[in-house]
């Protein structure tokens, strides 16, 4: 079982977490585009190999945060609270 480092609670086993999908743009910033662009935003996800920014949720404490994960090696590289990308997680 993998270990994931919650920015609030520290390293915890993966079963305490819920995966929340990739980090995507705020829909408020996308809603004024063409229908096709919106459909692309709603339905398509980036599956390209590489480092992904993903939402994760620590279930017992109710903490959402962002994890950077290399989906080729399945290694978490860093984690931080939403909006705290600049600080080292």
């Amino acid at each position, binding site marked *: *079982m*993998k*270990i994931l480092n919650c920015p609030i609670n520290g390293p915890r086993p*993966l079963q305490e977490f*819920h995966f*929340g999908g990739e980090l995507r743009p*705020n*829909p*408020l910033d*996308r*809603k004024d585009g063409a*229908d096709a662009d*919106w*459909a692309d935003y*709603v*339905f398509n996800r980036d599956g390209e190999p590489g480092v992904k920014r993903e*939402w994760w*949720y620590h279930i017992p404490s*109710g903490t*959402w945060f962002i994890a950077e994960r290399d989906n080729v*090696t*399945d290694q978490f590289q860093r984690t931080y609270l*939403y*909006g705290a990308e600049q600080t080292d997680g």
Partner: protein
Amino acid sequence: MDRRLPPREGEWIDRSQPVEFRFEGQSLAGFAGDVLSSALWAHDVRLQGRSFKYHRPRGLYSLAGHDANVIVEDGRRTNMRGDLLPITDGLDVYSVNTSGGLQRDRWRIMERFDRFLPVGFYYKAFHTPRWLFPHYENQMRQVAGLGRVHPGNAAVETPKDYAFCDLLVVGAGPAGLAGAIAAAEQGLKVLLVDEQPHPGGSLNWQWSGNPAAQEQFGGMLEQVRAHDNIELRCGTQAAGAYNDYWIALVDDRRLTKLRAKAMLVATGCFEQPAVFQNNDLPGVMLASAAQRLLQLYAVKPFDRAVVVAANSDGYRAALDLHGAGVEIAAIADLRHDGEPTGLAQNAADAGIEILAGCAIAEAVPSGGKARIQAAAVCPLEKDGSLRTGSLRRIECDGIAMSVGWSPNVGLAYQAGGRFRYAEHVAQLVPSSLPDGLFVSGRANGRFELHDQIADGRRAGLCAAAHLGRFDGNLPDSPQHQASPPSHPYPIFSNNGKKNFVDLDEDLHLADFKNAHQEGYDNIELVKRFTTVGMGPSQGKLSNSNAIRILARLNGASINETGTTTSRPFYQPVRISHLAGRRFHPQRRTPLDGWHRQHGAEMMHAGAWMRPEFYTTSGSTRDECILAEAKNVREHVGLIDVGTLGKILVCGPDAARFLEHIYTGRFEKQKVGRLRYGVACDETGVIIEDGVIARLAEDRFYVSATSSGAAVFYREMQRWALIFGMKVTLINATGHLAAMNLAGPKSREVLAGLTDADLSPDAFPYVGVKEATVAGARAIVMRVGFVGELGYEIHVPASQGWHVWTSLMEAGRPHNIRPFGVEAQRLLRLEKGHLIVGQDTDALTHPFEADVAWAIGKDKPFFIGSRSLDIVKQQSLDRKLVGLSFPAHRSGPLPQECCLIIHEGEIVGRITSIAPASTLGHPIAMAFLRPDLANVGAKVTIRTTDGRTADAEVAAMPFYDPDGARQK
């Protein structure tokens, strides 16, 4: 005949503890410390098992659990292996897979049919007719199989344990001991495990004649035992490696889930057999098995043996056997140049004949095939083929094979290590290892004892450096310099039919040639077609040779041919070790006990238990439900709705936040009023509905569906972050008890228990008040889910029981009755209120569910708004309608999910149905094609038994369309 030798230095048996056991009904004696196979061989019982397919006689082969020749059962436990089963007093075992006992096994006859049973025969023979396959399967399971499972056995509960360490060292041989000591000296907490009952690995049997090695062994063992940082666990296999060094450790008693920070794999090698005619008969064994038998159990393996060798280890084995009184008739050395070290001279000095450039072409069986009587030794051509014209028969009762090794690195593979074939050792060595994984010793291609120890020490220091506990210079590890310990192709054919590659599955060389001819030229395909490596020993002794054979057939290198994946578990693990306790978390409301005391039939509702209905003696389920519903319509009822999600939304942005979450408007909602809310996802699909109560300008109390509340709360938390709003969310679902008092008499029941003014003007429909009820602080809401005057009362969980019983008491003069989930579902269906998830599915948007009225006009944004703008332009495929069935009808009623058929096409689906209603006839809700959905239109529904039922589209709500009763 007794083959037990006088006591030997380092033996594992305890001669002070004799043990009596039975094998195939025969009483035998051994010592504590013996395994079944060693104790049997000590009595010269060589026939110890029968093979899987041909029922060939089989005996001791690896004596390390690397083969699966000897499998026994005792009527309670099954599929225990002779190499690994300690004998104990009273042990009474029989060989599996025989008919009429091991000696007289009737299925011996199978071998005569071998030419009708080529590889893949059952794919071809039993393919058609398909209906006969179960018959064939049953027949085959009688003939080919393993032990019987006894379903009547009592359940065995095994403990599960957890452990933590810095470094797990797997294998307590020379490299593992050295690695554990080096790491522990740098301050790492080390867990050292070994599958054998004693530490030392090959030091116990391969180097036992070497005093310097034994002295070194003793010194390392003393250090390990004395060091506070090292925990040594023997009899423990590291069964599987999972993410982030989460390792399954299995011992006789329990499964331990270990979290390590790094892992050192020092698991050594599996010795590999040579392939020749009859290489499976009892008496043919790995040289390491003969050494183990001799050194660990003090049993003389043979009287007169031929050793087939391709490395120094074979000469060491021959000298060990010679020293123990075994006559070594010859060493057949596969290498034309023979042994380059001084061991060759030592063997010659001992009077052993050395036949360089020779192989064994055949083990010659004695009558009955349970023994061998000679080895047919044959010179080799330069290309490695047999010069069969020059066979020489050498009388012997044993053949020891020392032709090569295959690294035992399944764990390293599972942990992410990758391997490549290296010519200098003619075996796989690591090509890349992930952070925190280390491999050392023979598994890392280091075969000289001092190289193994140095390599173990290097790996231990590397692990310490990886964990930040060592910053000195990391030593280099010397590469193997001598000739390769493994022969590149120890496979010989003199056109015999019984040269086995995989003993588990009875596969011989010809099977691989046939598979290749059929076009299976890829290792993964060969594995599946031939089943090589798929038996109980999982290819420990067969994968290496299979790859060598396929590489040669393909004219490719080993690296081009590839390897097969080694999955958990390393050795079979008993199911009882894996079985977990049942753990299904279940939520219960504060009123759960009351319901059970009052005859409630409880049902699962998501994670919750809820009353389905309350039983009444003499009434059926449906009668009870209808009576509960009618009582709500005519008098008053009380239902536990504590399972509803209850979320407090507070803060200056609370109203704006809710306008983003829900389709409706909340900014102008008055304090003290409720609104119905529908929430969609970004595609515009309905995911939630509920009631939003405004308790203050900046404080809302939101209810969510019982099953969706946890997810909805989680998503609300995320949206609050994304929108960057000043809003605080509190999930109070478990903090509060909730009940709905509904019916024309509900005001009268509540009036005596509350300080709130319940008059219609002071507390109108869709009003909310914070008040006291039966002395408890409560939020009281005028809701109309069931379509009657009603009050939903939320109180602290600790007060729930008191308030509920107070209401029941106060309601007694008014015929109050509790009602369950089923009655509530009926009542809301009569009102045409949908249930998200029941009447909507994963594609339902508000327009087709007829809740578009809940979308706020001219809202700039809510989640899903952009998608709904698009959907709105498209025509509807379906809409949610009411269906009414005649009161007097015959034939079956449809069930939920039954399809509506029109001119042979599916045009809709029932989402909810009530077989009986307070209206006197069955009603339903359904999705229907819009052009067929006019009120009064007739529809035909296919019932589950294939018949049809007729219904008529009806206006919803069915009951009290003006909503006069709930006002």
